[in-house]
């Protein structure tokens, strides 16, 4: 088995969290990102669930990568992912029923979340177990970070609270629109635009050096 050195590990994490951030750069897994990001708690819960599924599916698929025949690989991946998602769904229902209720349909829908299938296909099926686990973790953290940013903006503007605490002290009348569906599109569009702006600035600076 090939060992991975520190440099490669660093690259995997930087890619997952910044340069290839699943939501902001690759635009994968948008459904849940838009639907669930109405409060920070929901965003964190969804992020944690997706990260758990990503890490385990990457590990399992990486272990099986030499066994699964090429023609039926997508179907095999989906079965692995669906099994893991069912486990996460049952765990949430048993231990955190309130979160399970507010995420609702979007927990079973992690099965068809493109991030997980994309990482299985493009990374875990070609790389050793440890690197795949790191990749799953990095992508999961990237997803969670983007979810927290978007949901924090939506919760602060749309509800005047953060993590359920009132931060404006009563005099603030919340802009409901941001919590409603259109707000999801507008906030995410704004966040991606900001990211592209910052990135083009830093790239220009590096170019001048």
């Amino acid at each position: 088995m090939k060992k991975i050195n520190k440099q490669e590990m660093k690259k995997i994490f930087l890619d997952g969290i910044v340069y290839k951030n699943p939501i902001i750069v690759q635009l994968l897994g948008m459904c849940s990102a838009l639907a669930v990001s109405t409060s920070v708690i929901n965003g964190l819960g969804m992020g944690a669930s997706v990260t758990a599924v990503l890490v385990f599916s990457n590990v399992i698929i990486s272990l099986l990568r030499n066994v699964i025949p090429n023609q039926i690989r997508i179907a095999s991946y989906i079965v692995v992912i669906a099994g893991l998602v069912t486990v996460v769904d049952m765990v949430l229902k048993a231990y955190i029923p309130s979160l399970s209720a507010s995420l609702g349909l979007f927990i079973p829908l992690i099965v068809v979340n493109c991030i997980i299938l994309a990482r299985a296909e493009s990374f875990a099926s070609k790389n050793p177990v440890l690197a795949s686990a790191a990749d799953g973790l990095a992508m999961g953290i990237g997803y969670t970070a983007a979810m927290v940013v978007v949901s924090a903006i939506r919760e602060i503007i749309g509800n005047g609270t953060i993590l359920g605490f009132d931060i404006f002290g009563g005099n603030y009348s919340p802009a409901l629109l941001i919590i409603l569906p259109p707000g999801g599109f507008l906030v995410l569009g704004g966040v991606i635009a900001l990211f592209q702006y910052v990135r083009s600035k830093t790239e220009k600076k590096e170019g001048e050096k």
Partner: protein
Amino acid sequence: MLNLISIAIGAILIENFVLVKFLGICPFLGVSKQTETSVGMGLAVIFTMTVASAATYAANTFILVPFGLEYLQTIVFILIIAALVQLIEMFLQKKIPSLYSSLGIYLPLITTNCTVLGVALLNVSKSYNFVESVVYGFSAGVGFLIALVLLSLIRERISFADIPKPFTGAPIVLVAAGLLCMAFMGFQGLSLPF
């Protein structure tokens, strides 16, 4: 009958799958560059969702519920949908090759379209009967088609517009979708008399 009409109008306008329920956002953003391909994609999704609603209803009522295996719903449904998409692909390839080649890569991608699995799971949680499930699946597909075609028309105009640099690419599409979504919120006030 009135019940079915209210399910249909509800799924198409009031609770549009894409713009209100946020299902199928990936193809909504990915395939909406040209109106022609988005119509093809929409039609394929309508067909898949109608058949998938019927098939998953049958599997759930006759296999999963009698044996107490409801917890396997997600796995069984996604397998049924994957098999269905494969079947539709083989059928189109043989009988209607022109439509097959114009849909291209989008056809297998329907498997990972969350609207299809979403409609199957919603049918169960709303405990619809067979006819209601099929109507719900069909009209949810129609809602998807409408949203997709509307966005693709807007995007064809955007491609000629002069937009601020940071907003090029995905952000401007998301903003346009947000405005479209606001327009659809107008339907929420619609209360059906039956």
